[in-house]
């Protein structure tokens, strides 16, 4: 079954640690996205990719970085976690047709930095 996966689902980590949030999709989508969502607030785009070796920053400034070495994989890395990075991180992907802009989301990673 085609789907989008995120690991870990929950992460509690101390300040200063390096972390990588994993995102993989089996839908064959070229476009992938990372959003950040604080409780009760809107989702905000922080990174996107149109394909392998393509990465761009989104509307919301973020200290995280991303890479896209394989089509199905779009990991997000924080080199030194801080309490201000505590949030829910959602990965999404969208289809290959020019008229289809629907984005499909993974279950999210809830990150807590202590």
């Amino acid at each position, binding site marked *: 079954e085609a789907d989008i996966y995120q690991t870990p689902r929950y992460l509690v980590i101390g300040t200063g640690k390096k972390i990588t949030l994993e995102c993989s999709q089996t839908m064959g989508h070229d476009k992938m996205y990372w*959003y950040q969502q604080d409780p009760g607030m*809107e989702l905000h785009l922080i990174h*996107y990719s149109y394909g392998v070796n393509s990465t761009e920053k989104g509307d919301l400034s973020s200290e995280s970085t991303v890479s896209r070495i394989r089509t199905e994989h779009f990991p997000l890395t924080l080199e030194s976690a801080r309490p201000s990075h505590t949030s829910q991180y959602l990965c999404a992907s969208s289809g290959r047709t020019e008229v289809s*802009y*629907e*984005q499909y989301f993974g279950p999210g990673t809830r990150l807590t930095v202590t």
Partner: protein
Amino acid sequence: EDQVTQSPEALRLQEGESSSLNCSYTVSGLRGLFWYRQDPGKGPEFLFTLYSAGEEKEKERLKATLTKKESFLHITAPKPEDSATYLCAVNMYSGGGADGLTFGKGTHLIIQP
């Protein structure tokens, strides 16, 4: 500035009591308007895409409509399992920038048995 505003912020209904959620938008060059459902602790689940004014989409007890300034999500005879946060998002022509979605804050819907 492009904006998506959803109302009401929260809505409590009795089972079977129909109602509508509103999403108003002020964007230039709308490419698509999307409705998602989000359950606590989960990622948004795609419901509908609307591309042009006058368009309507239906799925079970949900019906989405679109005008030039707003969209409505109509819920007919809701059941407790329809309880969730409903998110509205737009995708716009941005002249080469990101084609990410711009989201509203959502409407938190509770259906009481």
